[in-house]
């Protein structure tokens, strides 16, 4: 495959199903963070009040979160990408340790090691927050010590998760092409060659040198 003229200018990075999963999860997580802030920061919560309503929105969004996550498993493309995110190769650790990780010296596949860590931490955080949140919702079935324990884990992990989500948004904010990939599903070849060289080679063959 060296016929550069046959190649489309851009090619598929994310399937429609993946993008919808990302979009719905993102919206739900933003709702959860906003309602959490209202429930948690006295001066903010005071502006809106209606604690019962805010709490109900938080609970509903938390339970609904499971739907896109489970539906995602039906998507072949999602499962493939989840597999790629899961697996670390020695080059991933090198990439993380290196100072020139953006230079392209160390080959990067469809996802770089930072994206893999973000995905794993986010999934772990969502699951733990979901489980502890469920314990808080059904708190009358648990003894005090476990209720307090669940609240403790939920509070602190949500703080850590918010930091990671903000980081995720910040990284996206700095890369318009990456955002384009998530919005439209496709990315230009030049971007893929630069940021995810190994994946580009896998999909399109070796770069053509004119």
């Amino acid at each position, binding site marked *: 495959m060296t016929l550069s003229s046959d190649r489309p200018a851009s090619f598929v990075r994310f399937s429609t199903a993946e993008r919808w999963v990302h979009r719905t999860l993102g919206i739900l997580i933003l709702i959860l963070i906003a309602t959490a802030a209202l429930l*948690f920061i*006295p*001066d903010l*919560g*005071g*502006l*809106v*009040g*209606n*604690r*019962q309503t805010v709490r109900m929105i938080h609970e509903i969004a938390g339970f609904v979160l499971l739907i896109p996550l489970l539906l995602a498993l039906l998507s072949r493309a999602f499962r493939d990408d989840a*597999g790629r*995110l*899961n*697996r*670390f*190769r*020695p080059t*991933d*650790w090198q990439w993380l340790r290196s100072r020139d990780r953006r230079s392209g010296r160390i080959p990067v596949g469809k996802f770089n090691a930072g994206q*893999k*860590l973000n*995905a*794993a*931490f986010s*999934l*772990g*955080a969502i*699951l*733990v927050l979901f*489980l*502890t949140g469920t*314990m808080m919702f059904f708190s*009358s079935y648990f*003894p*005090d*010590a*476990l*209720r*307090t*324990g*669940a*609240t*403790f*884990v939920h*509070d*602190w*992990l949500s*703080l850590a998760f918010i930091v990671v989500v903000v980081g995720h948004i910040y990284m996206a904010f700095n890369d318009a092409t990456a955002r384009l990939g998530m919005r439209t599903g496709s990315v230009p070849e030049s971007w893929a060659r630069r940021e995810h060289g190994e994946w580009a080679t896998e999909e399109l063959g070796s770069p053509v040198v004119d």
Partner: protein
Amino acid sequence: MVPMSDPDTDVEPPRGTPVGRRIVLGMLGLGAVGVATGRWLSDGVTEVVASTAPGLANVLPATGGFRIYTVTSGYPEYDPATYRLAVNGLVRDELSLSLTDLAALPQTGITKDFQCVTGWRVANVPWSGVLLRDVLDAAGVEPAGAALHFTSFDGVYTESLTMEQGMAPDVLVATSMFGAPIQEKHGAPVRLYVVPMYGYKSLKWLSGIEVVRDVIPGYWEQLGYDVDAYVGASNGRSDDPVV
């Protein structure tokens, strides 16, 4: 995780190691440990924060600060000049007490913990104001008055006590907290502080005390919380009592 290994066996697994799965499982494991030990961890964090940087308690989760619950939008507004606390129902003299009137009644200070039914507790909060029984004595409770119905000027929040509970020397019509006038978010200008009971009994933005025959369950009680809300002996909880 997997070392780069020696040259002879340098056959990296083609798909790499499942680090993502390990992270997720590790977090689930840590989460479970956290749930099991969180009560002690949370006490530890509270103590450390209280002794090193008390200001953090207002920002960090579960570090000894108050959490603010309101049942309506925002904090209800009032004018200190026109604020009145109505005392009526089965009383000899109906009262309408201004902040000045309240300040003229005998003042009592109480420093005790504030325990919320959702689990958080703020230790040693200094409160002051007028004992509820001093207010009731000023109005003169009629023999048929066996219960108290409290209303808030937020228009929604209500609370209840039996006359016996209300006459105890540890129920305060509080006007000050931490040595300063009560803040809006804590129920300014006047709120209840019912020492031995969970926080929801300590109604905020107090504007009415009605002496009635029977207990009328309050806002939270209608939502399922216990009417007799003694700390550690109600709502299925076993916190240390506040005495």
